[in-house]
């Protein structure tokens, strides 16, 4: 392996518009797309805007779309591309552009606030919590989430239909509802809060038609659809009619 020159097209602009700009830039052994963006900043475009932090796939800041696919720039190795290939980087499509590769992700923070928080069990003091690994494991999978919002970006419920944003929390925050619902000591029910019901009635679970796009793009490989959304749908079914679950149940019964 040796250094070579790659052809990049990077979207530059702001809320008033913009377009793809061509760059020819050096690529070295073992580099990731974020390294190339940094080289562009240091040598050709000092004001190129990009979010990043840990550069190790742990903070979920450098989300963008590489050749149209939502990805973390720091975890996308240059070696996955052909050397002759033109690599196109664009900002997350589901969110408004601020500048260049930086988008306004406030939608996600708004949705986060709409999910009622963990309710501590009454009469159990700090230090007295007892939970078993097999019980916490389910919610722990969802707590691996680094909030990169790639699932929110790829979910076509909001990607293609801006107007759905009002009623739909998106995979990340439906998963948060599932996480709290599966928390062994969450006492929401004791306060009259039915998390399963709110998933359906307040967070738009019914919009999800389990195409698993969210699971596919998750850099933490969380099985969002299978382990969070579908169980939530199944739990919601006896409370609320959901055509997909109804259909699923029909098909399953037919096979028996």
């Amino acid at each position, binding site marked *: 392996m040796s250094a070579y020159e790659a052809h990049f097209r990077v979207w530059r602009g*702001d809320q008033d518009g913009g377009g793809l700009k061509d760059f020819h830039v050096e690529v*070295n*052994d*073992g*580099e*990731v797309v974020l*390294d190339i963006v940094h080289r562009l*900043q*240091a*040598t050709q475009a*000092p*004001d*190129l*805007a*990009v*979010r*990043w*932090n*840990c*550069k*190790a*796939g*742990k*903070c*979920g*800041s450098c989300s963008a779309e590489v050749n149209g696919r939502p990805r973390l720039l720091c*975890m996308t*190795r240059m070696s996955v591309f052909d050397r002759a290939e033109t690599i196109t980087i664009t900002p997350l499509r589901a969110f408004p552009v*601020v*500048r*260049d590769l*930086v988008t306004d*992700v406030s939608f996600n*923070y708004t949705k*986060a*606030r709409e999910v*009622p*928080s*963990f309710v*501590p069990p009454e009469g159990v003091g*700090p*230090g007295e*919590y*007892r*939970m*078993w*690994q097999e019980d*916490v494991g389910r*919610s*722990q999978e969802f*707590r*691996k*989430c*680094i*909030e990169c919002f790639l699932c929110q970006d790829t979910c076509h419920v909001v990607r293609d239909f801006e107007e759905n944003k009002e009623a739909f929390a998106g995979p990340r925050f439906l998963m948060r509802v599932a996480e*709290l619902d599966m*928390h062994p000591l*969450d006492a929401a029910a004791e306060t009259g809060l039915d998390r399963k019901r709110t998933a359906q009635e307040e967070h738009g679970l019914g919009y999800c038609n389990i195409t698993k796009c969210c699971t596919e793009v998750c850099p933490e490989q969380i099985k969002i659809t299978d382990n969070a959304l579908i169980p939530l749908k199944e739990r919601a079914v006896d409370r609320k009619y959901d055509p997909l679950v109804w259909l699923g149940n029909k098909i399953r019964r037919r096979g028996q």
Partner: protein
Amino acid sequence: MTQVERQAWDVVVIGAGGAGLRAAIEAREQGMRCAVICKSLFGKAHTVMAEGGIAASMGNVNERDNWQVHFRDTMRGGKFLNHWRMAELHAQEAPDRVWELETWGALFDRTPEGKISQRNFGGHEYPRLAHVGDRTGLELIRTLQQKIVSLQQEDKAATGDYESRLKVFQECTVTRIVKDGDRVAGVFGYERESGRFFAIEAPAVVLATGGIGKSFKVTSNSWEYTGDGHALALLAGAPLINMEFVQFHPTGMVWPPSVKGILVTESVRGDGGVLRNSEGKRFMFDYIPDVFKEKYAQSEGEADRWYEDPDHNRRPPELLPRDEVARAINAEVKAGRGSPHGGVFLDVSTRMPAEVIKRRLPSMHHQFKELADVDITAEPMEVGPTCHYVMGGVDVDPDTAAATGVPGLFAAGEVAGGMHGSNRLGGNSLSDLLVFGRRAGLHAARYAQQTATSGTRPVPDETQLDLAAAEALRPFSAEAGEPDESAGPAGPPENPYTLHQELQQSMNDLVGIIRRAGEMEEALHRLASLRVRARRAGVEGHRQFNPGWHLAIDLRNMLLVSECVARAALERTESRGGHTRDDCPEMDRDWRRLNLVCRLSDPSGGLAAPDNGHGQIRLERREMPPIRPDLLNLFEKDELVKYLTDEELTQ
């Protein structure tokens, strides 16, 4: 005066990592209106990078553990330079801070009895680190973030506004603390997104900005770690201590070059991983220093038995404190026994089954697979030292976290100095954030309350706000070539990225893991010339999300803290913890009693520094307060003689 958006809050917290969020929660719960300002998005702070765990002597895995043992380990790890009162408070309060997280929804890994599981770590006598796989920092930040959201939900129910009592100003940078006479009166900063300036008036400001690693080339730290809080404190007139002590984590990735420095968690060793050189030898047995001889295994057999039977065997030397392991790796590579890419081998593949590795070290497995094409269940990792943490920081009162000499200024977490002495133990960072974050928030709230009750709320000096705005705009006028009499000798505009790279290279080469007087003098020379050039750092474009401009502003901070590190390191003529001198290799008991205190040479807070050879930092020596007798009695005399002078021992 400059047109800037103005707001008034009771407590401003700068930084939204573990310490900042914990401080904000406390201030809000004390009834104060609290604003948090952070450079990144809410929830992205560097705390997410912490992997191994939170040290707290809950005694869930070994019931012999208690705060006294934790205190002892912390003092030993820091080679007794720690402020003993901070180490005491930290060891005593850490368990409560961890348990409290569970009541906010945190889900730690469990013991078979359903309690919080605890793992072994370097320098900790018993399994002590509460953890979630190897992503403990993420769990911590998420839990605190969600607690903040839950408080905002309460405020929404009570006032109709989520942000009436607790607001996060994300993607904003603070460039100056503004004062009213001696007292803190607020902060000045800009929104990264729009470039707009803002000023927040507040009687109390908590610094929780983390560390300084971005001044070094090979580092595990993110772009945010530009020493902002350290510099803000200096500029506001508060001193820093212990800046010569910089922790090089022994195990960073070394290949490929683009990931060099990224952290490989100490849990790899805590869970059984071993270090080998190119000859296949477990070399750490050759590097056990005298002060630790009785505590560590002398043979591989004993070391391996320890994992199963810790009561009758001593710990493996791979679990020595980080400074010892980092120096050992450095020495092996220097002696020509390194790995192909200039590190050594860290192996778990021959130590435990693939399934166990994937369960206990999932992010390491993922990180190596994705970034280096290495399957850690089948082959060893290549690792080497990486700049990880600064022990030095703002000189604070141990109980209140108040900065010395500037009423209304507080500091907690990595930006505060003293707690870890000359070297921090793994796992003691997350607990430090929580213990002192809470204390800083509590005392900042009380202080703010006091100014309200007594009708003595400070008012920011308008001139300072104007100067801050002019300072922040300078990089644009450099680009336009406008005359600027304070910018020093004429010259072409400098590229801030180039300046940053040169700074990182200088610090890495000249004030790195092994230090020599001549090299540090050279570093001070280079810093002086970089300082002159940095005043001409120019940027293109406009103020909206302009990373070149942001870096040009951050350079001021990196240059200030780098000078502190280099000057203090040159002054301390001994080797101790995170400060190793090739030309003064011994630890000196007389030096243990001394802190080196860094202050700005120009007490007005200006940065003109006409005499560049002299620099911007003035050093002074200060005697440490004697360790309280009941705490000294926790140690055997045989051990104390290694650290304390005869005079101290007879007192």
